[in-house]
């Protein structure tokens, strides 16, 4: 891989975030982590190539992150992960989320989704 892809993981559960991060690093992605909305905005000083987004955050909802992202940069694919709320198709469309993965999910599935959406960025 000529250039490492930058993936931002926004998830408040420390353990789950660390598991996802370990997988992404092993798959040669560059990973930044954010447990909160505030931290997510900090991490987006560099535009991520893809974002994994939990809907339930302690200081906001994942949709707030998506909204902020939409206002500040374009073309970042979003994979939504959530255990409690299943997003409506309208929400997915509004925030330009590419995929939804309900918790608990198979790690292989998440990696497959990342692979599916990440190249569209590198090609453009």
């Amino acid at each position, binding site marked *: 891989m000529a250039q490492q892809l930058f993936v931002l993981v926004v998830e*408040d*559960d420390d*353990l*789950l975030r*660390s*598991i*996802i991060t*370990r*997988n992404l690093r*092993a*798959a040669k992605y560059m990973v930044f982590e954010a*447990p909160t909305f505030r931290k997510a905005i900090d991490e987006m000083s560099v535009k991520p190539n893809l974002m994994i987004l939990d809907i*339930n*955050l*302690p*200081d906001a909802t994942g949709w707030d992150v998506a909204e902020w992202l939409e206002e500040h940069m374009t073309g970042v694919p979003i994979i939504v992960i959530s*255990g*409690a709320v299943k997003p409506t198709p309208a929400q997915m469309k509004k925030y330009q989320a590419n995929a939804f993965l309900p*918790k*608990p*999910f*198979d*790690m*292989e599935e*998440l*990696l497959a989704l990342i692979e599916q959406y990440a190249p569209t960025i590198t090609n453009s």
Partner: protein
Amino acid sequence: MAMRDLATLPFRSIARPRWYDPLGYAAALLGVATATGIMWLARSILSLGSIYLVYMVVVVAVAVGWGLAQSIVASATAVLATNFFFIQPIFSFTVAAFQDALALAIFLALATLTSQLVARLRREASDARRGELIESTLYVLSETINRQHNLGALLDEVAGQLRLVLGLSACDIELDDPGGLGVVSAHSAEAEDVGVESDEGQESAATVVRVPLTRGDRATGTLLLTLPDPKKRLGDEESRLVNSFVESLQTAIERARLQQAAVQTEVLRRTDELRVAMLSAVAHDLRTPLTSIKTAATSLLNPKMVWDDEDSQAFLHAISGETDHINRIVSNLLDVSRIEEGRMRPEKKPHHIGAVIDNVLQRLQQRLSEHAVDTRIEPGLPEVPMDEVEIDEALTNLLENCLKYTPPSTPIHISARRRANMLEVEVADEGAGIPPAQLPQLFDRFYRVRADRKTKGVHGLGLGLSIVKGIVEAHGGKVSAANRPGGGACFTFTLPIPQPVSSDLTT
């Protein structure tokens, strides 16, 4: 106890004259005797005419005070006394002169006539008073019914009013339970009537009148009037009064029942809401650790990945730790149901609290690693009877609570000391503390301190502290929560220290 229907209800009366009142006869005799004594001493200066007048005053006074029967007795006694003491020959009931006999007869006739007049006036006045009393009673009753919305309290008040107004020795209202609202009853009795049931003489003197309460043609309850004396009868006003009472009572009962039914429906609805909320909270709480287990396991299972030892260990630790997490959720739920059903029965054996605290700290070592834990156990604490597993559970819940609500790297303080006959265990943190308004509900089931947007996200069912309370109370102790003066929350529970039995009691 004899039963009667309403029409024959004897009535102790609202100050109605009572012909059998023994006090009245005693007063009549005493009045005549006193007047006779005084006049005997002053007989040298009194004419027979004055003597008749003095007796007339006594007769009228008795008529005013008690009634016709008593005043007739007073008249007859006065005639006999005049004849015996003041008419020649004295100390004999013979009358020598014809005009003396005539005077006596005229006095008797006049006294009887006056008695009748006075008694009638008296009765009319008392009837008017009773009419007023009945009216004001009905007013008070309707006011009570309008004001009092609690059925039990309403019945108590009404029973009390009815007893006072009718001069009953007891008044009971018993409601049947057609709508599943629970049988409600009220009892009002004279204080001195407490021993009635055990005293056969008194018991046989009392009569209970049963008045059915109905709704449409269905019986809804019974009004029981216990009368102190079975000989008297109910007057028209009293009958009407009881009927009005019963009518108003039926309306009030109906209204209260409808209200109570509405309240119960609301309670059921809220219970259902709570159940739904609990189920969704449980689902969310279980899904978080399940997600970590699933992702860690599928990471290890992914054939495309090659993991080094450190990663593999991390995944396996995650799986193991989150399995414990789920297990804690499940045991908390089981504890809640045990507490709820009153099945929390601690198997108490003497344990040293220090050892239990050490065990908990050791088990939570990894999760507490970011906090400095400061433990202070007062030296020389006795062993205290406790269910080690349950107290361990209570301490674990308190510490997990600290972990949930305090930022990493803040210290946690655990202390145990003796306070009189109690062992006091305290778990304190240096977090944000508890909003004072929320302190009272803290130990309620499903209660969680409302998360501040700035603090870290708090998940959980809000069961932990309610479990601590259930466990500690099952041990005979108490729980409390407060804010530390320097900031942070402080939870305390106590366990009773058994007192040594003093030697002079053990024989």
